[in-house]
């Protein structure tokens, strides 16, 4: 009797949160799968079951493949660089460098600001003719170049913005870990006569491994989740050169209003995020094994 009451209390405590989670996370994920097998309602035409047709379209859609390829390039290009920069920043800010307070502030500030707002500023940097980059390169005698307007450099430009925005965020996690590290380790290493680089390579970096993996998972999610700067800077162009998966879903779903095809595209994104989840889970398993 007493036990049943405890159960009921617990379930009631969970009810509001679980209800909202079910409505806006679990249900849409499942409904999305369901809708991806149907056609998009258009005017008087009713929704019909079309099996795998949406997926067949997807396989034959060159823009989808380009978005996927762009997204992979984007992830591979931004993640290692922002993590490396984050680590460097954290080590610097944690050391005995002059002006630590200012440095930390400067590195971290982009994290606080909305991507949509900073993308506006970067857009101006890249502007042909009077943008800042143009001015500098022209004064150095380089020919004029439309950074966001040409297929060869547009993706690179948005990747730079992403690295700039994220490195300071990841720095915080490294900094937290560095600050909680025991000074005994450094003392022991000093007695052994270890150099700073050796100490970093053999002691600090391995100890930071859990942080690196945590940051890595977050970085992967963000690489597929954040497309605000695409909306502001390129709208996926020129000629789909900066088309990322979520931005493509947004275009298909809310500019061409093809919700069924957008559902099929969303499934691809969900599978990719699911793989990231599995990787994190596998890692957590291993870490508990170590303890």
């Amino acid at each position, binding site marked *: 009797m007493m036990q049943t009451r405890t*159960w009921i209390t*617990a*379930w009631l*405590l*969970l009810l509001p*949160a*679980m209800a*909202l*989670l079910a409505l*806006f*996370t*679990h249900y*849409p*994920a499942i409904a*999305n799968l369901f*809708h991806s097998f149907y056609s998009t309602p258009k005017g008087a035409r009713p929704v019909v079951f079309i099996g795998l047709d949406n997926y067949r379209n997807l396989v034959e859609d060159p823009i989808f493949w380009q978005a996927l390829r762009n997204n992979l390039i984007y992830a591979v290009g931004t993640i290692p660089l922002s993590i490396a*920069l984050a680590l460097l920043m954290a080590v610097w800010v*944690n*050391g*005995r*460098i*002059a*002006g630590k307070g*200012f*440095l930390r*502030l*400067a590195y*971290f*500030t*982009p*994290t*606080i*600001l*909305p*991507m*949509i*707002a900073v993308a*506006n*500023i970067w857009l*101006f940097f890249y502007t042909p003719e009077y943008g*800042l980059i143009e001015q500098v390169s022209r004064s150095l005698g380089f020919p004029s170049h439309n950074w966001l307007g040409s297929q060869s450099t547009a993706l690179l430009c948005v990747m730079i913005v992403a690295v*700039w925005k994220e490195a300071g*965020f990841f720095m*915080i996690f490294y900094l*937290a870990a560095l600050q909680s590290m025991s*000074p005994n380790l*450094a003392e022991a290493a*000093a007695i052994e006569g270890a150099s*700073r680089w050796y100490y970093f390579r053999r002691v600090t970096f391995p100890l930071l491994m859990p942080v690196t993996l*945590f940051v890595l998972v977050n970085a992967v999610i963000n690489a597929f*989740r954040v497309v*605000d700067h695409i*909306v*502001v800077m390129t709208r996926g162009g020129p000629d789909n050169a900066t088309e990322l998966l*979520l931005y493509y*879903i947004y275009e298909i779903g*809310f500019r061409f209003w093809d919700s069924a095809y957008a559902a099929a595209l*969303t499934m691809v994104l*969900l599978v990719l995020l699911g793989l*990231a989840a599995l990787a994190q889970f596998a890692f957590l398993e291993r870490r508990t094994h170590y303890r």
Partner: protein
Amino acid sequence: MSTTATLLRGPRGGVLALETIGAWLLALLWILPLVYAFWTAFHPSEFSTRFVLSAPWTLDNFVKAWHAAPFARYFVNTVALVTMILAAQLVLVTLAAYAFARFDFPGRGVLFALVLVQLMVMPDVLIVENYRTMTFLGLKDTLLAIGLPYMASAFGIFLLRQTFKTVPHELDEAARVEGCGPLATLWKVYVPLARPTYIAYALVSISYHWNNFLWPLIITNSPESRPVTVGLQVFSATDQGIDWSIITAATLLSVAPLLVAFLLFQRQFVQSFMRAGIR
């Protein structure tokens, strides 16, 4: 922690100087966009790319931007939105975290796993289906529609559950002996002890939702419900004759409250993000 560096052999003077220069160059590069935005916004547009010390200062750009779009309304919307989401999150997350941390009941493992799903499958990605749901509920183009998908936060439940688990059982039992029911115990024992976690979570949540863009862009289509991020985008995307000075002024305007708060409570912010990261 500066002892770490001093104890170890090196860095010799030269190396340290090089590192200092490197760190400062990187920092300058990192704030360059902001500094640049300040310059452009506070000077007449003919100086937006000419950097001369004699350039006159002006607030004109801000005045023009403020009058060119309903920014006051956008700010009211954002503040209302962020407050609503945070209030709902704090209540829902507290109740759920308490249940997971201190109750033994059938289905706990499964339910917790279902919560964790949201860490990967975030509302940011489920835009197509959530739009359908909001249309069905008749909530399209309302602040509630922007906030609803984020109110049950898996991140918050996880974070707070960890904190609640560190509360000593003795305190819990003492409260029960005093005659407190589960809710009174939660309110009198757990909530006060978890204060730092609440502050950390609140700051992370506020900056996340102040900055959120794609979902609000999709679900709103009138100035009455647009948050400031969407308002800024609508403003700078509609043809402004590409007057960058006004666009940067509007940009600074929209980030000002958050930026000022961050500069004032810098330590608090950084520590909150740290605390939220160590789960």
